[in-house]
């Protein structure tokens, strides 16, 4: 496929690997922020062919993985409400709440529908005027504009049966939280490619400026990631520390202004709870006050569970998301916890670290080649 295959050429991968080996002169811990990168790194098996001193620390950038149990419980409570349809992205179905999941609720007869796009949720509201449609919307900056547009559309259509239960999270505040954590050791960042198409590379300038770590915003194909590694090493060799863009075919300095306008018009920053990490000030977005009529949390406040659920104690997702543990540090990995029966959220989405390891860890990789 055009604009994909070019970035999987094994000969170029070998070339980049050689360059990396040449430049690599000591331990380097690189956090890939985005779960899409985690998936690509684990799937390609590139860690086995990189110099052993280069280590990827898997970051918090999987929106499904960081959605707190309490939020899943809220969605489940609404799924149990009569004449209510929950619309959500497919990945959210299996995420365990404190005692059930949306998939289990659906099996018991709740109206839970998987949508591909937020506008499909709006359409459900149009087609089902006698039901309430709640769009359970999660996402990082990549997805937030698309989710936000559904509220604008619902308002234009004069819908009163559409609302959003939102769990929208932002990259910069959680990166600050990770960097402020003394347990985490990170020398450089692989910046999130698709988030950056929206926010632009300028959103990460605080990382070199305040924390003195280089950032290279990367595409998702194996060769994109290898080239980004090479760029990080080159910065180090040349004594530079800045934000660079490897994914220049899609990322500009200021991102997508129109999408950012939608975000500003629809949402405002709030304190946000991150699964396994805790609450971080201004790290989430919820609907602006004047759009409260579309905010499911307020609209159905009486239905919201009062108790704060406990996170399952055996799951170390939180530490994995913060980059201080790996899936093999979890006793349940692959035994008590599998993608079919996940205990924690990192095992659900294909961008989750545990799910990626579960799927690809068993495949051996031939030295010198990177699987695509």
């Amino acid at each position, binding site marked *: *496929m055009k604009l994909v295959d070019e970035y999987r050429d094994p000969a*170029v991968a070998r070339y980049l690997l050689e360059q990396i080996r040449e430049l690599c002169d000591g331990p380097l811990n690189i956090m890939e922020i985005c779960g899409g990168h985690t998936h690509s790194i684990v799937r390609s098996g590139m860690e086995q062919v990189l110099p052993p001193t280069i280590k990827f620390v898997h970051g918090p950038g999987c929106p499904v993985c960081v959605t707190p149990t309490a939020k899943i419980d809220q969605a489940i409570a609404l799924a149990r409400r009569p004449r209510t349809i929950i619309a959500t992205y497919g990945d959210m179905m299996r995420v365990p709440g404190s005692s059930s999941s949306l998939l289990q609720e659906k099996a018991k007869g709740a109206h839970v529908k998987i949508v591909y796009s937020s506008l499909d949720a709006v359409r459900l509201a149009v087609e089902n005027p006698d039901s309430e449609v709640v769009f359970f919307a999660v996402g990082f900056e990549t997805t937030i504009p698309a989710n936000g547009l559904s509220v604008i559309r619902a308002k234009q259509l004069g819908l009163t049966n559409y609302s959003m239960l939102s769990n929208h999270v932002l990259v910069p505040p959680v990166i600050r939280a990770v960097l402020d954590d003394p347990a985490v050791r990170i020398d450089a960042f692989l910046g999130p490619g698709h988030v950056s198409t929206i926010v632009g590379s300028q959103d990460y300038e605080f990382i070199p400026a305040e924390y003195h770590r280089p950032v290279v915003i990367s595409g998702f194909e194996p060769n994109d990631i290898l080239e980004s590694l090479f760029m990080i090493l080159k910065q180090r060799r040349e004594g530079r520390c800045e934000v660079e863009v490897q994914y220049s075919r899609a990322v500009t300095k200021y991102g997508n202004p129109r999408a950012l306008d939608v975000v500003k018009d629809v949402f405002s920053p709030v304190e946000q709870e991150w699964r396994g990490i805790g609450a971080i000030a201004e790290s989430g977005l919820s609907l602006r006050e004047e759009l409260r009529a579309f905010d499911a949390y307020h609209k159905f406040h009486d239905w919201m569970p009062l108790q704060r659920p406990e996170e399952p104690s055996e799951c170390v997702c939180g530490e994995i998301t913060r980059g201080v543990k790996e899936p093999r540090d979890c006793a349940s990995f692959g035994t008590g916890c599998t993608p079919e029966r996940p205990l924690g959220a990192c095992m659900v989405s294909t961008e989750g670290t545990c799910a990626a390891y579960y799927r690809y860890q068993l495949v051996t990789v031939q030295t010198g080649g990177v699987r695509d």
Partner: protein
Amino acid sequence: MMCLAVPGEVLDIDGSIAMVDMAGVKRRVCIDLLAEVHPGDYVLVHVGFALQIIDEQEAQETLKLLRACFQEDLHAAVGSQQEGD
């Protein structure tokens, strides 16, 4: 995958909706998040929305640069008798 965006080619446009060819699969994609888009453009598609136009020229430039370095090094390393490698 939640954060995945896939490139596709815009075939035609009808108001807010573009028909986009993604590796042979045609999908209806909302283009309201873009200021301007034309048939023939490559866009990144995420949850049914076009997020950004892919700068094809930029893509080809970087690929060319990478290939040029690679070829140079290859020739330096194996000499010129390695035809067709």
